[in-house]
């Protein structure tokens, strides 16, 4: 308990420090990429719990993001009304006022996504492998189609004018919370049970592990953080539309996981950073080489080469730790 609090305080202070540093010394473009990295980390690490630890191949992460984004946007925008006398916008509920009101809005978004995770998790439990992937893909599409057709959430145009709440501070804080809690999950009796399900479902069940319950738990956990990430992304982009959370978004997160090594938490983080930074870094190359469009070719090539030469991902199922580093460095113990 003390350790958790200490870690939280350390993380929040660190995020605060980094936020200040970025604001003072780093150009806005770079800060934006760092923010996107933070969001990508939340997405990849949370999907890793479903796909990597529990071994349930889900393609519905963007759907959970969309729910989180729209619900939190509802609380930060729709609940604001124009005061006709003063001409100011005021918030109907003081809970959602100002930048601090962002947190309850985000959390509600996350919880809405978690509820969706429960709804998706229960019926799709019996499905395995490709079938589960298709069912979750279907879920994502249903969310998008519904959002596209509801006029009250702007239909295909989406919701504009989200307040500028997603500062580096909040993004880094939530990324930190997501990573720490996922490490804690992984290194607990629940994490071992999830891995047991992935490794051998029948044996896990015979050992008394309640497989159905744990799978739903993994879905809810992953969906909650996907919802948070969706809310953060919405308030960073400040405009959300259904197309932001399309099928390709889910694929993008899966690719991050596969690149880093499915089942490795540190791999997920590295994958998230690489796949967020790489397209931007290649943009420079593109401009200098005067070859517009080469960016995506290189991006694809990197992925293809990785799948040929290291199909298990950069880290496989291992974690990047000091121990592993020591072993890999020259002169280290074998």
């Amino acid at each position: 308990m003390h350790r958790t609090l200490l870690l939280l305080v350390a993380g929040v202070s660190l995020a605060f420090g980094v936020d200040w540093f970025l604001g003072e010394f780093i150009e806005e473009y770079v800060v934006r990429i760092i923010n996107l990295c933070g969001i990508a980390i939340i997405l990849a690490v949370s999907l890793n719990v479903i796909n990597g630890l529990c071994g349930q191949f889900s393609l519905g992460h963007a759907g959970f993001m969309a729910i989180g984004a729209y619900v939190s946007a509802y609380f930060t925008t729709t609940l604001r009304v124009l005061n006709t006398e003063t001409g100011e916008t005021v918030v109907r509920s003081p809970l959602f006022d100002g930048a601090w009101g962002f947190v309850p809005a985000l959390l509600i978004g996350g919880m809405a996504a978690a509820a969706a995770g429960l709804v998706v998790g229960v019926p799709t439990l019996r499905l395995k492998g490709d079938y589960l992937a298709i069912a979750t893909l279907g879920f994502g599409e249903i969310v998008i189609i519904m959002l596209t057709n509801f006029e009250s959430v702007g239909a295909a145009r989406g919701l504009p004018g989200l307040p500028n709440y997603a500062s580096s501070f909040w993004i880094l804080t939530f990324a930190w919370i997501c990573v720490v809690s996922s490490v804690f999950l992984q290194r607990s009796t629940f994490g071992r049970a999830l891995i047991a399900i992935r490794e051998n479902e029948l044996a896990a069940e015979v050992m008394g592990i309640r497989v159905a319950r744990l799978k739903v738990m993994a879905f809810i956990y992953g969906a909650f953080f996907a919802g948070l990430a969706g809310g953060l992304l919405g308030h960073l982009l400040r405009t959300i539309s259904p197309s932001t959370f399309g099928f390709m978004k889910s694929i993008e997160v899966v690719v991050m996981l596969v690149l880093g090594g499915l089942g490795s938490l540190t791999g997920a983080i590295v994958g998230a950073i690489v796949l967020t930074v790489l397209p931007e870094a290649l943009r420079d190359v593109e401009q200098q080489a005067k070859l517009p469009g080469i960016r995506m070719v290189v991006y694809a090539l990197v992925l293809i080469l990785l799948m040929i030469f290291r199909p298990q991902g950069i880290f496989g199922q291992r974690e990047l730790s000091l121990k592993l580093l020591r072993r890999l460095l020259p002169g280290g113990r074998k």
Partner: protein
Amino acid sequence: MTALLQTSGLTIQFGGLTAVDAFDCAIQPGDLYGIIGPNGAGKTTVFNMLTGVYLPTAGVAHFDGTLINGCSPAQVSALGISRTFQNIRLFDELSVLENAMTGAHQHAKINLFDSLLRTPRHYREEKRQRDRAYELLQFMGLEERAGLPAKQLPYGHRRKLEIARALATEPRLICLDEPAAGMNTGEKAELSALIRRIRDELKVTVLLIEHDMKLVMGICEKIQVLDYGKTIALGTPKEIQSNPKVIEAYLGGE
């Protein structure tokens, strides 16, 4: 004395094939009970019915007075029946110790938030599982390999780890499915002693499927012989050895 496990008329059909036909048995607490039979006799199928993997077509099975057919594997496990698998099913990516710890998971009385917030209850639970798992690894002679990934264990040790994992569920009845398969003579002797100690020291009733006659005859007190899904003999090792039906099933009749 009431039987710990009592089945009557336990039958399962796959399509037109009756894999197990009217399996009756009564296993008393403290028994070391063997089920033998030629390949395809339906021994493992009996285990699968007892542990909730298969739903019997007909018949009933009672464990300590509770009806267990229709229970899920996890429910059966919670009642106190655990098992090992003929084709080893370890959690390869987990360490040896962690494999044994997963057996103790079902007795965890904490919720997810205890673990996410690292409450004292989480640490107590981790310690309980680790201590129990380590004890059982010591019992099986695997403690020196506790930190190794399970996939790196040699074959004989993998079988022992399966037993340790099954024991970690704190069963009252453990079903061992060909635990000596693929072991050499020395390992088999060691295993026989271990199985006896499971019954005598851990007070767990043992139900054993085994192909190795010497092992079965050496340690089991009661033996039931299956052939084509039917029970053809039941008795002490001595009675079984001299039973003409058993000899016919194994060596073929005229």
